[in-house]
Structures are given as structure tokens and as C-alpha cells.
């Protein structure tokens, strides 16, 4: 097998998405292995999954992260003893902070929210499920980022309940 054929073979394998390939013929021996693009991390204690986000085109993905950090300093810092309310996901899916790509997020840190107000979307099997807030109060922190995979019961928002 010459260089050209070897290159063609590798291209062929890549195109077909073969993860691993081994060949032994005569005095030729080759082994090709592709590692996963972004290996999934399993945090040992919390058993949370942090897999690569679903491959959906979200052009504004980068922006909300920086926007969140910009908003933080203006707010009252949460004290450790504070009893903040967690809004948790009732379903497995993918977190989206706004109704559609590019539009402003449903809620961000500092916003005042009411019971029943939509905070985010968790998409499951192509269905966009609106997640409603279950207390009235102030959004202290958004705990998930746009496009992040979410498991059942995962914390999405921390809310300081109104007195």
C-alpha cells in the first residue's frame, strides 16, 4: 500500500465514522484509533454528567456566559447562611436560556420573577418544555449554560424568595 492509498484509506475511515481500525497484511501492520472529540467527564462525587452539548447551531452561545459574569458584581452577594430556593429541572434534556437562538434570555441574575414565570426551556426529543418558576423572588444565579445537557432534578436557578 502506498502513501496515496494509505491517505485514501484514512479518509474513508474518517468519513464513515469508524472509531478503530486494525490491519495486518504481509509485512504491513497498521492500527488507527480516533479518540472521542470531547471526552465526557463524570464528576466522581455528584454523578453529574457533563457531555458535549447537543450539536445545535446556537450562535449566541458564547455571549450569555460573559453577560452573566458582568451582571454579578452589581448584586448583593449571597451569604452562605441564606436559604436560597433551587429551581430544578423536572425532565432530562438540553437547557436553553432564551425562547430562540439570538433572542434575549427569559431570566438573568437580578431579575424579579413571579410564580409561574417562564425561566428557561429544557428541550427533550425536539419538544421545547418551558420551565416555570415556583416561587416569587429575585434570580440570584443561573446554574446552567445555554446548550448544556440537564438531568432530572438538576439545579437550574437559585432564587432568593421574596419576603
Amino acid at each position: 500500500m502506498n502513501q496515496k492509498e494509505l491517505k485514501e484509506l484514512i479518509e474513508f475511515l474518517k468519513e464513515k465514522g469508524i472509531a478503530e481500525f486494525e490491519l495486518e497484511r504481509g509485512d504491513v501492520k497498521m492500527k488507527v484509533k480516533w479518540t472521542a472529540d470531547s471526552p465526557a467527564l463524570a464528576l466522581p462525587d455528584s454523578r453529574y454528567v457533563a457531555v458535549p452539548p447537543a450539536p445545535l447551531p446556537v450562535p449566541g452561545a458564547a455571549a450569555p456566559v460573559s453577560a452573566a459574569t458582568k451582571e454579578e458584581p452589581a448584586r448583593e452577594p449571597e451569604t452562605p447562611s441564606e436559604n436560597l430556593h433551587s429551581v430544578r429541572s423536572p425532565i432530562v434534556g438540553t437547557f436553553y436560556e432564551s425562547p430562540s437562538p439570538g433572542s434575549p434570555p427569559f431570566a438573568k441574575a437580578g431579575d424579579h420573577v413571579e410564580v409561574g414565570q417562564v425561566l428557561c426551556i429544557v428541550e427533550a426529543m425536539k419538544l421545547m418544555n418551558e420551565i416555570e418558576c415556583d416561587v416569587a423572588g429575585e434570580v440570584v444565579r443561573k446554574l446552567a449554560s445555554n446548550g448544556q445537557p440537564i438531568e432530572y432534578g438538576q439545579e437550574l436557578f437559585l432564587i432568593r424568595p421574596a419576603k
Partner: protein
Amino acid sequence: MVGFERFPESWGLEAESFFIMFNKILVANRGEIALRVICACKELGIRSVAIYSEADRNSLAVRFADEAICIGPPQLAQSYLNIPAVISAAEIANVDAIHPGYGLLSENANFAEVCGACGIKFIGPLPEVIRLMGEKEKARAAMKQHGVPILSGSDGVIASAEEAREWARQVGLPVIIKASAGGGGRGMRIVRDENELAGLYRQAQSEASAAFGNGDLYMEKYVERPRHIEFQVLADEHGNVVSLGERECSIQRRHQKLIEESPSAEVTPEMRKEIGDILSRTLSTVGYHGAGTVEFLMDQERRLYFIEMNTRIQVEHPVTEMVTDVDLVKSQIMIAAGTKLPDVLHGPILHRGHAIECRINAEHPEKFTPSPGKITAFHPPGGTGVRIDTAAYAEGTIPPYYDSLIAKLIVRGKDRGEALSRMSRALEMFMVEGIHTTIPLHRRILADPEFLAGKMDTGFIERFFARNAAAAESLAG
């Protein structure tokens, strides 16, 4: 998932040397079978994704899977049986395939269809085949068509005692009269004597009318003292089907198997081959893929009658694995990835030795009340020819929401005698504290003369309990 392709001929490569495998599999189950599938994935170099309910957060499947996703609260309907949650987890984890295990969604044709629609390979038969085998009458008809012996049943309702008598004459006594509209023993009569038939027919009819508002009756051939014999099959996606022999599963309590073994003393090599050939032909034509179990009743004359087919891996699959040295779960995965049976099996099926399995439940050994809770000590037996399939561990908790199976103890010996003594020894050395288990019950069965003689049928357990009750009374009295 990659399709099977031929290389350009100029490369001089054999297409057969091409071997494809999944990158990632989601295990849509829990407990010991989830762990079993994860074991197979690890050995095949496939990443595994465990899904779990909040009650299974500390389970071994979650611990040993490469990734884990919580999909719901403890209740089955909201977690393991929640198809959108399972599929959503499969999508966010970007898996290639789902292994459904046994029970739960494993024989849910809709679930298999949803997997296909979402581009995820369901490790099992096609939805339409699952459906076919799930409908009892259709399955019987399909099997009958291909020469599989079935238990004769009437074609529809038997409208009169005269019709009943005629049908009984054709098929031969004994027969059982059953209510079309119900079950649970109501509207059922066994007829052993033709003179009693008319009377029993009328009794069944009035009982059925009273219980279900519908007096329609049908009839089936009745097998006295049947044995439950099932055959394990493997089928690839290229039309090749092989039988891996039988399991004897007559030791049952309320239709739940307690002990299984292989081979069955009543199945001769000729029978094994004959049934194997018929099943291979039939299931190849039906287009069956994957692992499956075909269940039969055997009568006192060693005749086999098809009852139903289970289109999944079964709880007692280790029994077959121990006597054939075939890893059935790995085989399922390889088959689903497109591998041909000769490359899965590497040679003919050989049966060696004798294997027995005891299903150990977290239940009181006499009252059978469930015993969930924390296990304070757990030391399974070891040694030659002993295998434990379990997700239980010391300091672990058995949740109350799911079935009570906590461990499968399987032994293999060179013959039944060695397997029996090995099982007795292994049961004796199995330590579980903190919860009740059925280990004491299994120990008593392993000491029972009828069981040791191997002459059992599905009525064994009732007789066993009666013997034990009588013995206890005579000791007390």
C-alpha cells in the same frame, strides 16, 4: 452506526476483516442486569451510559458506567418506564444504541420504534417482530405455520357443551375450559373425564358470566404435571439463527421462577437438535434478530408444546452461558452492530457440564414479604465454578420501589451431581445480613429428595411447601 461497505478491490483487503462496533451504549435498565450490560460494554471497549432514578443514585451501575444521567424520581412510570426521559437521556449523551435489559421497556415495541425514529439502534428484534411475539395468538399461529409444536387451542369461542365434547375428542383429554373474557382461575375447569365435561362446561359458563359479565369460553389442551422447558436462541441480522440449548425452569412459585438449570434430563440430544433446527428455520423466516427465548411446556411423554417467546435477554441467561461458554449479552451487542453469527460464536455450540441458578430475592424466606432496606454484611461465595450476578453490596440499600431480585447465584459442575453439591455449598457460604433473603428457602430446596432426584414439574413448589408444612407439624405435634 456505520453500514457494511466493500473496499475498492485494488486495495486487496478482505471485506470480512472489517469489524464495526458501537461507540456508546445507553443501558435502559437498573439493578443486576444494568451492571451485566455494563460488564459486556467494558469488555468490548464500548462506553456505557447508565440512567437512574433518584432511588438508584448509589447503585453499582451508576458507579461503574462511564457516564450516568438521572432521569426521574423513584417511581417506575416516571423514570425507567418514561420513554421520553430515556430517549432524552440517550440524545444528550449522544449514544449509538440502547440496551433495554429485561422487563421494563425491553419488550415494548413502541419504545423500539421510537429508538429507530430517533436514529438510535435498539438492541433487540425489530418492532414488528416484538409485536408479533407479544400477541399470544399471532405468535402461536406463526410458530404453528413453521412446524413448531403448539398446545392445541380452540379457534375462538366454544359455543356449546356438544361443541366442547367434539373438540375434546379431537384433541384428546385432558383439556381445560377457560373464560375468554378473564383469567385468575375464574371460569376455568379442567376436564379429565368425558362424562364430566358437560357439567363442567356449564359451571365454567355461569362462573364466567358472574365474574366477567361474559360467559364465552374457549378450550385448550391441558398438560398434566408439565415441565417448563425453554430454548435460548441467537439470531444475527443476516438470517442466521442458532439454538444454544434448553433451560429447565419448572421450580416456580406463582409463575415466578426460583431455580433454573441446564441441561434438562428430559431433553435428549436428538430432541435438542430437532427443536433447534425447527426454531432456526422458523425464526430466520420470521426475521428475528438478537437473543430470544422460546418457552415450551413438556408433558409426561416428553412432548414439547410452544407457549410463548420472550424477545429479550432473560434473567436466567447465565445458566446457558455457563454450559456453552457463550457471552449472550456481548453477542447481543455484536449482533446489533451487524456482526454475523459465525464471527460472534467462533465455532459450533458445545454443551459441557451442568449449571444451576438460584434467584435470591430480598424477601422473607417463608412469608415472602418484601424486605427492602440496608444490607449490613454481604459476602458472596466463591471458588471453582461459582458465579454471582448482583448489584447488591455491603452498606448498600435495597430500594422498595422495584422487584426484589438481589442476586443470582449460578454454579457449574461437570454433571448434575457436582452442580448440586456445589450449589448447596455456595448457598451455605452466602452471607447477607440486614435484610431477609430467600437463601434459606433455596437451601431447603437443594436438600429436598424430589429436587435432588430431578423429577420435578411446575407443581413442585406446592408439593414442597406441603411436605415442609407436614414435617413441621409432625415435629411440633
